[in-house]
C-alpha cells in the first residue's frame, strides 16, 4: 500500500483534494505530498494506531439489529478532509442565518402564525406534520429560541459548492465524533499540526454548548444545574450523551433519575432531591413526558412538559422544534429566510420537488428513476428511494406510496456528491462524502463549529453515509488560506 496520486481518478465527480490525477488542489498540496512520502509500513502503522486509539478510547456507536444491540467501534478514515477558511467563513454565516430564520419560523408557528396568514405556505402542511405539537401553542421560550442545537447536512455538487441537504432540529447527533476524530488525528499525524498548516481547533464545542445551555436557565444563578437526558445505554448515540456530559461536567441522567414535584424538576441524588435548571434532552419529543405525549414511554418523566410550560425548567431543544425538521418544510426555507430576516439566503438548497404540489408531483413520478425520494419525517436514511439504483418493483412501490400520501414525500434529482480520498486496502480511492456542521443558538448568541462531522460512504460508488448503514467518517480541517 502506497499513496500514488497519479493513479487516483475521481472520474466525473468533484474531488475536494485532487483536481486531476497527480494534481492536488492548492490547500491540499502539502497534505498530498506528505501522504505520498509515507512508505507502506508508515501508512499501515498509522492506520493501525488510529484503530487502536478508537478501541482504547472506547469511541463507539450502537447498531440495532435482530441479534440485539451491538456496540461497534467508530469507523474513521485517517486522511483528513480539507476546507479553505475563506470558503468556510461564508458557509458558516449561511448556517447561522438559516437557524435564525428557522427559529423565527417555529416561534411564529406556535404563536401568531403570521406566515400561514400571509399564505407563504399552506396551513395543512403544518397541521399534518408528524412533528407539529399542538400542546406547544402559545409558549414563549427564553429568547424565543426553540431549536438551540442544529445539525445541518451539507453536500457539494459537481460545481464544488455547498448545498444544504437537510436540517436536523430534533436530537441531532455526531458532534462527539467530530471531536474524537480530531483527537485521533492528532495522535496519528502530529507532524501535520505545525505552523505550516493553520488548522482551526474544534475543542471549544463543549464549552460553547455549556454556555449556551446556561443562558437558557430560568434561575438566574451563577452555576445553573444542567443535565443531559439520555434514553440510556442501549441508544445508538449513548456514547455521545456520555461524552458531552463528561466534557461539560454535567450530570448524565435517565428518565428514572428525574421526578417532577410542584411543576419543578428534580433529580434523585444520594442526599435527596436536587433541583434541575436546564435539560439537554436527547430523547425524542414523543417520549419526553408520558402524561402529555406517548403514554407508553418509560424513557421520559411525567410532568416534565408542564414544568417547561410553567418556565421552571429549560428544555433544549424545545418540544415541537421538530416542526421545522421536515423534508417538506425544508423546501420552503429559502423563502422563510427572506420572509423573516429580509435577507437573501447565503446557502442554497438542493433543488427539490414537493409531491403535494400537482405539477411537481407529476414531474417526480415521470422521472422517478432519476430522483432521490425522501419521506417527510424519517431520519438516518431510512425509508428513502434511490431512483437510479432502484429495482422496477421498488419504483412501482414508491409510485404507489407517493400517490397515496403525497404530503409525506419530496424528491430531489440525484446530486453527484463530491469525493475525497480514503485509504483502501491497496491504495487511495475516491469516496463520496457529506458534512454535518453543528450550529448553536442561545438566548442572544450563536456559534457554528469550524467544519463539522464528515461522513463517508465507504463502499465504492455508494452515496449512503450513515454509520448505521456502513458509513465511515473523517476529521475535517478548516485551514487558513496562505
Amino acid at each position, binding site marked *: 500500500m502506497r499513496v500514488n496520486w497519479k493513479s487516483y481518478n475521481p472520474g466525473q465527480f468533484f474531488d475536494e483534494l485532487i483536481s486531476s490525477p497527480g494534481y492536488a488542489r492548492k490547500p491540499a498540496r502539502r497534505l498530498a505530498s506528505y501522504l505520498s512520502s509515507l512508505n507502506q509500513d508508515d501508512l499501515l502503522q498509522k492506520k493501525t494506531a488510529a484503530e487502536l486509539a478508537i478501541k482504547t*478510547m472506547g469511541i463507539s456507536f450502537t447498531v440495532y439489529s435482530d441479534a440485539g444491540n451491538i456496540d461497534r467501534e467508530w469507523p474513521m478514515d485517517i486522511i483528513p478532509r480539507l476546507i479553505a477558511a475563506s470558503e468556510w467563513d461564508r458557509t458558516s454565516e449561511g448556517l447561522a442565518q438559516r437557524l435564525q430564520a428557522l427559529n423565527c419560523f417555529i416561534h411564529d408557528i406556535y404563536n401568531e402564525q403570521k406566515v400561514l396568514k400571509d399564505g407563504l405556505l399552506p396551513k395543512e402542511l403544518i397541521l399534518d406534520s408528524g412533528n407539529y405539537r399542538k400542546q406547544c401553542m402559545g409558549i414563549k421560550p427564553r429568547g424565543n429560541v426553540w431549536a438551540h442545537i442544529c445539525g445541518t447536512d451539507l453536500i457539494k455538487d459537481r460545481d464544488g459548492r455547498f448545498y444544504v441537504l437537510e436540517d436536523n432540529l430534533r436530537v441531532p447527533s455526531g458532534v462527539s465524533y467530530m471531536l474524537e476524530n480530531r483527537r485521533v488525528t492528532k495522535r496519528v499525524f502530529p507532524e501535520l499540526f505545525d505552523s505550516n498548516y493553520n488548522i482551526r481547533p474544534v475543542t471549544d464545542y463543549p464549552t460553547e454548548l455549556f454556555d449556551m445551555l446556561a443562558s437558557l436557565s430560568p434561575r438566574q444563578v451563577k452555576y445553573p444545574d444542567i443535565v*443531559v437526558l439520555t434514553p440510556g445505554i442501549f441508544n445508538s448515540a449513548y456514547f455521545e450523551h456520555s461524552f458531552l456530559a*463528561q466534557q461539560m461536567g454535567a450530570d448524565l441522567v435517565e428518565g*428514572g433519575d428525574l421526578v417532577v414535584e410542584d411543576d419543578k424538576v428534580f433529580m*434523585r*441524588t444520594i442526599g435527596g432531591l436536587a433541583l434541575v435548571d436546564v435539560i439537554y434532552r436527547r430523547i425524542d419529543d414523543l417520549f419526553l413526558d408520558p402524561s402529555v405525549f406517548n403514554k407508553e414511554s418509560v424513557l421520559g418523566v411525567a410532568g416534565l412538559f408542564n414544568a417547561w410550560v410553567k418556565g421552571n425548567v429549560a428544555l433544549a431543544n424545545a418540544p415541537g422544534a421538530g416542526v421545522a425538521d421536515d423534508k417538506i418544510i425544508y423546501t420552503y426555507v429559502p423563502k422563510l429566510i427572506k420572509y423573516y430576516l429580509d435577507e437573501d439566503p447565503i446557502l442554497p438548497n438542493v433543488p427539490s420537488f414537493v409531491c403535494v404540489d400537482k405539477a411537481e408531483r407529476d414531474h417526480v413520478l415521470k422521472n422517478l428513476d432519476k430522483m432521490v425520494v425522501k419521506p417527510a419525517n424519517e431520519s438516518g436514511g431510512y425509508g428513502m428511494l434511490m431512483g437510479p439504483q432502484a429495482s422496477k418493483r421498488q419504483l412501482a412501490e414508491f409510485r404507489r406510496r407517493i400517490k397515496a400520501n403525497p404530503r409525506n414525500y419530496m424528491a430531489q434529482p440525484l446530486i453527484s456528491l463530491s469525493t475525497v480520498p480514503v485509504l483502501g486496502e491497496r491504495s487511495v480511492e475516491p469516496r463520496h462524502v457529506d458534512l454535518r456542521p453543528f450550529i448553536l443558538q442561545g438566548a442572544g448568541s450563536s456559534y457554528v463549529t469550524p467544519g463539522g462531522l464528515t461522513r463517508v460512504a465507504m463502499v465504492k460508488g455508494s452515496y449512503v453515509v450513515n454509520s448505521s448503514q456502513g458509513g465511515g467518517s473523517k476529521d475535517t480541517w478548516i485551514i487558513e488560506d496562505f
Partner: protein
Amino acid sequence: MLLSRVAERVYWQARYLERAENTARLVSVFSALLMDLPPGTKLGWESLIQITGNEKNFSERFKLAKERQVIRYLLAERNGISIIEMLAAARENARTTREILPAEAFELINELYFRTRDKADAGVDRGKRYEFLADIVTECQQFWGLMAGTMIRDSAYSFVRMGRSLERADMTTRIVDAGSSNLLPDLEIEVDDPESREPYENILWMNILLSQSAYQMYRQHVREPVKAEEVVRFLLQSEEFPRATSHNLTTVTKVLEKLPNSSRVKWQTDKVRRLVREADINALLNHGLLHFYPHLFLSRSAGDVENLLRRGLLQYLDNVQKEIAKVHLRIAETWFQHNT
C-alpha cells in the same frame, strides 16, 4: 449532588474490579503452591470454588473439579463470575459513568478488559498463567493509582473507595479461608503427624502472603517467622497493611463521615470492625470448638479433631463475610433507592 444511580454504578465498578484482582490473586496462590509442594501431594482445586462461594453453580456445569475445569471456570468462562466476566461488568459500569470518572479511567479498564479477553484462553495454560494473572493485578493497581492521582475527592470518589474497600475486606477473609481449613485436609500428607506437616504449612502461608503482596510487609512488621496464627492476625487485623480486612473496614468508616445520612451504614460497619478486631485468632485456630465443646472430641481420631479445630476459624470467617454483606445491604438501602 451525586445521582443515586451513578453512585451505585461507580460503587459496583470498584467492587467488580477489586474482585477480579483478588480472584487473580487467589488463583495465583494455588498455582504457586503447585510448584512448591512435594511430589505426591494433591491440591484440592474444588476448595477454590468453595472459597469464592460458587459450589452450586459450578457443579451444575462440571462433574469434575480438577485444575483445568476450575481454572477455566474462574478465568475465562462466560458464567457471570469468572475474571473476564467481572472485568466486563466493571467495564460496563465504568462505561455508564464515564461522565464522572477521569477520562483515562475508563480507557484503562476498557483496555484491561479487551486485553484480558484476548488472552484468557492462554491464561488457562500453566505456562502462561503466571504472567496472565500478574498483568491483571498490575493493571488493577495502576487503575487505583490513576484514581488516587487524578480524581477529585467528591462523593463519587467516596463510593468508589467504599466499594473497593468493602470488597477487599471481604476477599481477604476468603484468602485466609484458602489458607486455613479448606486447603490442608485435601493435601495428601500425613495429617496425624504435626511435625511432618509443618514445613508445608509454612510454604502454604508464605504463598498466601505473597499472593496478597504481603510477604515482605509481614517480614518487616511482624518479625515473627511465617506461621498460621501470625499470618491470619496480620491479614485480618492489621490496621497498617492496606489489604488487611481491618484496615479496609476502617477506610469505610472514614469514607462514611463524608456522606449524608450514613448512620445506619456506620453502625453495621462498626459492628463488623469490632468482630474482626476483637477476635482471638489463637483461640479460633487452636482452641476454638475444643474450648467450648470438649465433649465432642472424646471419641474422635486425631485427624477428626484437627478438622474440627480448623472449622472454628472457618465458621468465624463465614460470619464475618455475612456481616460484611449486611454493610452492603445498608449501603443499598440508604443511597441506591433511585427508582422507587
